[in-house]
């Protein structure tokens, strides 16, 4: 669930757009290089974008009694690195802002910053950390997808708290309020997204091992399924 159209003051909306723009531009460069250097992975790249598309469209009930949707950005961040996912995530956000009145054009910068930039980087960081610590592929994938999903909505909460501090409790007061709405709702959904991402990577491991090796997600010796 993204920040709705017009719900960030103009100054905040502009600042987040300026903050997100260089990441998106860098992502476009990396995406083009990825396509040029590894054209065989184009289909898998499309599949990563498609995964983000599906998950962003699924509004799922949560134990807080409200609904939200996963982001689907962890998979692409792990397979193609976060900058490439930044572009795919921004495209998804743009589609929803233009056709579904979900999110918005004025809040696109802020929403891209949370879902397409910080989320993928945090998820990729968690994935890398688990693998460095000797964790298996699937455990690391779960951690990466879970963190990418949850962190996205923590950033959304912080963005709204910055724009609308609580008259009494200030930034922290508002953060608790928005965190309860977004982040707590998101916890079970982040678990779901982790499990679905693990499922997709399991399927990829049995059908597309060569691609995973080329993307350095799998090593040569790990192909046996």
């Amino acid at each position, binding site marked *: 669930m993204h920040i709705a159209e*017009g719900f960030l003051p103009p100054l905040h909306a502009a600042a987040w757009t300026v903050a997100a723009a260089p990441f998106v531009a860098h992502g476009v460069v990396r995406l083009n290089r990825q396509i040029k250097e590894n054209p065989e992975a184009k*289909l898998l790249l499309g599949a990563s974008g*498609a995964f983000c598309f*599906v998950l962003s469209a699924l509004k799922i*009930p949560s134990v807080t009694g*409200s609904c939200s949707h996963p982001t689907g950005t962890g998979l692409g961040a792990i397979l193609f690195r976060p900058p490439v996912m930044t572009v795919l995530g921004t495209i998804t956000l743009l589609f929803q802002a233009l056709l579904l*009145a979900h999110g918005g054009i004025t809040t696109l910068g802020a929403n891209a910053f949370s879902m397409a930039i910080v989320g993928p980087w945090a998820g990729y960081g968690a994935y890398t950390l688990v693998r460095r610590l000797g964790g298996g592929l699937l455990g690391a994938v779960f951690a990466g997808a879970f963190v990418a999903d949850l962190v996205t909505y923590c950033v959304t909460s912080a963005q709204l708290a910055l724009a609308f501090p609580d008259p009494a409790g200030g930034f922290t007061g508002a953060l608790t309020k928005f965190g309860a709405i977004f982040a707590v709702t998101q916890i079970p959904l982040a678990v779901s997204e982790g499990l679905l991402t693990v499922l997709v990577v399991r399927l990829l491991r049995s*059908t*597309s091992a060569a691609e995973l090796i080329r993307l350095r997600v799998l090593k040569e010796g790990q192909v046996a399924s």
Partner: protein
Amino acid sequence: MKRNVLINLLLLAAVAALAVLPLAIGSGEGKEEPFTGADAQAETAITELAPDYEPWFSSLYEPPSGEIESALFALQAAIGAGFLGYYFGVARTRNKLRPASAGHTAPGRTAASHVVPGSAAGRDAAGPGAPTS
């Protein structure tokens, strides 16, 4: 292989259970509007924190009804799921054919010998145009 399929099905079942659980235990009970979107709740919270705040921009296009909005969300999911299905179909087929064409034993050679007549037939198909020139 069988075990693999079972694990995949269990993963899907766990996701389904996580989605159904809030409905089953009645998480939405006692709420004015159970299971609304978190974004709508955030809008309410904003108007509480800053009663004077007026959204200064509205969506360029707004689906005229809830039905059309849900249709567009379904379309988004269908595009994504359709492409994912296509990807796995291609990957699986490619994977199945690979051992035959990359094999270095007899089956590999038969697979290769199938290719030759195929390409010859291709040339024949192009043939009718060729003699006239």
